[in-house]
């Protein structure tokens, strides 16, 4: 019983300590631009639907950001899994394209910004759909192509790398035994490669979503952005509202951690066969 209590308390120790240090330091610094009191920030987080800096609430900005991340991320997953499975399975394709992808991978998503702006400017998915007014225009105009592209770049590589690695590490005995049982190429893909590589793919998807989420602030600093949690933070900084900056940072952290947690939970449940069949 005491052990159980201890296990529940352990993860809470560092955040509580941090809050205490923050509170003490804020009182001593006594400057709300350098370090606002903890209670101010806490107030913002406890009331997430309150309008901030006439930019909408914390919650509505997070929702907009999530929509952007999801658009870029889903695109990245679909492309990376398809390319990854074919590249992982067909050696010649792997040899042909691995250098190409290796050259682009080290480029940080942020370094794409100038090029992406030159290409897409402030065009949004509403422009793509040919909309100029209405409800859908309002939604889609928030999805700037340039932002989605930056997020796409961030999410693409983790998924691609782990899909290739997952497919390449499928035991040849599994493939061979399927072949001698009469499996055609299509059955090899859907009944052996995909399920065998699924744990690696999902791990890549989890990491990819994390990276995509981290690209958010850089994407939302692009011109044409007037909303989103990343923009809220940069805007709050220019008007010296450090409490909003910190509240925004904390929300990014909490949402990111929640996404990670959900993914891990799903991984544990679905792929227990992998852990136990060593």
């Amino acid at each position, binding site marked *: 019983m005491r052990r159980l209590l201890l296990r529940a308390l352990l993860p809470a120790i560092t955040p509580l300590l941090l809050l205490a240090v923050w509170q003490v330091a804020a009182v001593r610094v006594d400057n709300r631009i350098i370090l606002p009191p903890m209670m101010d920030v806490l107030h913002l987080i406890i009331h997430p639907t309150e309008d901030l800096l006439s930019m909408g609430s914390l919650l509505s900005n997070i929702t907009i950001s999530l929509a952007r991340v999801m658009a870029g991320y889903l695109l990245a997953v679909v492309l990376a899994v398809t390319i990854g499975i074919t590249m992982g399975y067909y050696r010649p394709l792997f040899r042909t394209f691995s250098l190409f992808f290796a050259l682009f991978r080290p480029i940080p998503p942020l370094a794409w910004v100038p090029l992406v702006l030159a290409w897409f400017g402030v065009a949004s998915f509403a422009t793509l759909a040919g909309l100029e007014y209405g409800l859908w225009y309002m939604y889609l105009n928030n999805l700037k192509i340039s932002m989605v592209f930056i997020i796409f770049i961030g999410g693409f590589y983790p998924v691609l790398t782990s899909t290739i690695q997952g497919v390449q590490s499928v*035991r040849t*005995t*599994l493939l*061979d*035994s*399927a*072949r*001698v*049982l*009469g*499996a*055609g190429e299509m*059955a090899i893909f859907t*009944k*052996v490669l995909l*399920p*065998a590589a*699924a744990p690696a793919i999902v791990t890549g998807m989890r990491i990819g979503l994390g990276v995509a989420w981290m690209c958010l602030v850089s994407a939302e600093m692009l011109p044409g952005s007037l909303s989103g949690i990343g923009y809220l933070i940069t805007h709050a900084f220019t008007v010296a509202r450090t409490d909003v900056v910190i509240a925004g940072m904390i929300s990014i952290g909490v949402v990111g951690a929640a996404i990670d947690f959900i993914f891990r939970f799903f991984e544990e449940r679905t792929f227990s*066969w*992998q852990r*136990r*069949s060593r």
Partner: protein
Amino acid sequence: MAMKNGSILEIAGLTKNYCAENGSIVHALQGIDLDIAANDFVCVVGPSGCGKSTLLRIMAGLDRQTDGVARYLGKPIDRPTPQIGMVFQEYSLLPWRTVIDNVGLGPEFAKVPKRQRLLLATEFLQLVGLERFAHAYPHELSGGMRQRVAIARALANDPDVLLMDEPFGALDAHTRILLQKELLSIWERHRKTIVFVTHSVDEAIFLADRICVMSGTSGRIMEMIDVTMPRPRERSNPFYGQLAERILRMLEGEVVKMGVL
């Protein structure tokens, strides 16, 4: 060869070269000739690395030979076919599928409807005495049980020929002897042709009608030995020991030649 008429597998002048990492050529098989009659139980023994797996993989249609030909019922083997089944040493069950779904895999590839597939799979699970574990996952089974499932899975495809590459190699001695007896009883009831690779001379003598002894240095067949001892074979039979002694001496010479000892 004398038994040309009844032969189900014919191998003539089979040669396989591999290109090693350092660029040199490995002669895994050199001019192998072998005829296997229908319903025969042939064991292949030889030192590690002499080309046993290579030979079996070519017969299964998984690898292509450099030269020569392997025929099944007169037709060259150039790809895997459901008539030629194969059991591997280990790790061949799909770990995310239950036992019954693993056994039904061959019929599933052949697009047999689900209900019929389940009936088939259950029948073959019963054959290896594992119907109680139909809904277990491979990692919940012992090594011996997994190999039983692998055998049931190969049989569920109703192949004419069963190729087995050291299927009992990773099992403990007791389980191994148990499975040898089960395999013989299945073979006697279902009349399959079996080509069984093993590095255990004892296992080969217990199982085989004919033993193919391979040379370690040249990728050739050193000798074909007919085992005429009546079945079920007793390990206490003096012929058993004499034959084992003779084969072991041949293999020992090979290992010395390979410079392993």
